[in-house]
């Protein structure tokens, strides 16, 4: 279980607990459940790299405590 921090720099900072074999799509659903936006409107980035929905966190090498950027589309 890892815990990822997502920050949208506009006031929303969210800590989400997830497995490392969850996909980014699952992570978006968890974030949507916590923030209240729709999961298909969320975009997770790391400095211009937009993370794709079907790839797991482990493959993106997202570790415990890592910070990701939260944007909306």
């Amino acid at each position: 279980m890892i815990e990822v921090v997502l920050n949208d720099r506009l006031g929303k900072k969210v800590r989400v607990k997830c497995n490392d074999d969850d996909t980014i799509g699952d992570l978006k659903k968890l974030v949507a459940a916590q923030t209240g936006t729709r999961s298909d409107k969320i975009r997770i980035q790391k400095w211009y790299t937009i993370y794709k929905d079907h790839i797991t966190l482990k493959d993106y090498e997202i570790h415990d405590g890592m910070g990701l950027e939260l944007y909306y589309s």
Partner: protein
Amino acid sequence: MSLILELINEFHRLKINVAVVLSFSKQSLTCKIPKPSFFLPELCYEMANRTDPAAKSIRGTNPQNLVEKIVRSKIYQNTYWKEQCFGLTAETLVDKAMELDHLGGTFGGNRKPTPFMCLIMKMLQIQPEKDIVVEFIKNDDYKYVRILGAFYLRLTGTDIDIYRYLEPLYNDYRKLRQRLPDGNFSLTHVDEVIDELLTKDYSCDIAMPRIKKRWNLETVGALEPRKSVLEDDFEEEEEKEENDQLDDGMEDGAYEKDYHHGRSPARERDRDRDRDRDRDRDRRRDSYRYRDRDYDRDRDYDRDRDYDRDYDRERGRGRERDRDRGRDRDRDRYRLREEKEYGREREREREREGRDRDRDRRDRDRGRRRSRSMSPSRDRKRYARGSMSPRRHADEPEDAVTRAEPKKKKEKKEKKDDGTDHPDPEIAEANRIRASLGLKPLKL
């Protein structure tokens, strides 16, 4: 020249003095610029996106704000919007609408809006009259124009209007092409889209305003109860079945045949009723078979009369009452009829039977008559059922055991899989959310 006319049109709509515009555009008259929005002063470009100042506000806000900010910006930046939707009036909008060939929200990685969305935005901007919108909906030739009108009405109309104008569209079965968010096309139908509009609160990347539920409006009296076009067909089917039953009550074969025919299309309520009745008949038939042989004599006579009465009551007055009073009133005959909810499990049914049976015996022992029905066949049945055949008793413990087992199994399963009972409340909460989203629990 036509460009200038379009421009004048647009400015006129925005109530800007046309004379001023002419002086602006003197420059552009000399150069051959096809796309005015890129070359004329910024002012024009920004203004193109403003709502008509005379337009009324919808749901307390600028009508364009019904589409949320990000999607709105995407539409304004879209080429289709800039080229085709500039200077549109209600008439020219119809022409553009007739050229539509698919509907959808935003698609692709970039969230590009479809022309359908751009036209919706344009309609929100120019605010056509209600009769124009109703014309869009009523027109039969162009299905996308119809959907456009329906969508706009759903966004801007009153609750009553929405139900009144959109429900007839349930009868339209034509195919539509829909653009999915990943960019592919898929098949859908007009009535599916209308259903989505009426029941869901989000469609084509636009959040639908909340409307009152239909039954609310019915209780207030603002709307008639929903009458489906299939209602007549269904009633015919039911009557036919009823008649068949009266005629040849003896044969089980007839039942089989009837309830296969009796399947009526696509309406949930009807399907429920069908299924319930089928299950009733089924169960009644089966249970009769392995009950006492004393029954056989009165079985069919009872069943027919009971069925009719059941059927009338059920149809006439709704199921809640049956369910509530079902226990008391209907113990023998009706108790086999389960709740009218879809998907009720067999265990609970058997449980109820067991309970009823206990009560039955108890009552009989005490000699108390709780039945309210005056049918003679009923009494006959009660006495007949009173026999303490060994078979009967054998059923009871079986039921009790089977009843308890599935419950236990279910609880155990929940404990193991979900992880929602983890001692740490945060993890339990996270697991609960994951379970509701359909994800596996956290690996600790």
